[in-house]
């Protein structure tokens, strides 16, 4: 069965520093991968997705992620973090060949210190 692992429950970075959030997936075929962000009291907002093609995908708010099949990873990066990036970040993969049931990771809470 498909699964997603986000090894880091909490990460704290200084404003202006770079960020990398880790995501590993378990899936036999080419996965469809997503990163969502959830700000306090808000819903899940899509940051970016990988379906196929270029393994480096750009998203909103200056985020990017790189799909590495050899490492079964889809890590999220941002070169310079802003205080408004403090939120919880979820990696997700489409489960199954049909439909759009998403399997989510446990999430990583990002704290930004000034």
């Amino acid at each position, binding site marked *: 069965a498909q699964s997603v692992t986000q090894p880091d429950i909490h990460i704290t970075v200084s404003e202006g520093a770079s960020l990398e959030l880790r995501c590993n997936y378990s899936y036999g075929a080419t996965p*469809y991968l*997503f990163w*969502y962000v959830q700000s306090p*009291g*808000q*819903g*899940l*907002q*899509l940051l970016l*997705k990988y*379906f*196929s093609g270029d393994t480096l995908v750009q998203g909103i708010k200056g985020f990017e992620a790189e799909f590495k099949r050899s490492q079964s990873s889809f890590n999220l990066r941002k070169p310079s973090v802003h205080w408004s990036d403090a939120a919880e970040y*979820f990696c*997700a993969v*489409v*489960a*199954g*060949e*049909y*439909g*759009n*049931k*998403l*399997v*989510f*990771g*446990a*999430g990583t809470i990002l704290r930004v210190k000034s």
Partner: protein
Amino acid sequence: EPEVTQTPSHQVTQMGQEVILRCVPISNHLYFYWYRQILGQKVEFLVSFYNNEISEKSEIFDDQFSVERPDGSNFTLKIRSTKLEDSAMYFCASGSSGAPGANVLTFGAGSRLTVL
């Protein structure tokens, strides 16, 4: 930008009561979903709905749960007799396609259910 709207944002209910959570998906979307997130845990799939019927449901989605699209705009989740463990944030999502590589789900802001 089109959005998925959920009501209520927060509901408190007594154990054993019926609860209906409402969602207005994006107007041209045809695929609808409910997910839930128990505090401190992962977001979990509950059910998917297409063409007025359930297309897939998880083990969580037992006989206490039902979904309905009563008109052309609303999509509801009913919990018939709530239990303490139903306390969670419930997210509605909609999508325009059923093909995994051709679709992105749009999520609502969630409905927080507290069962006392």
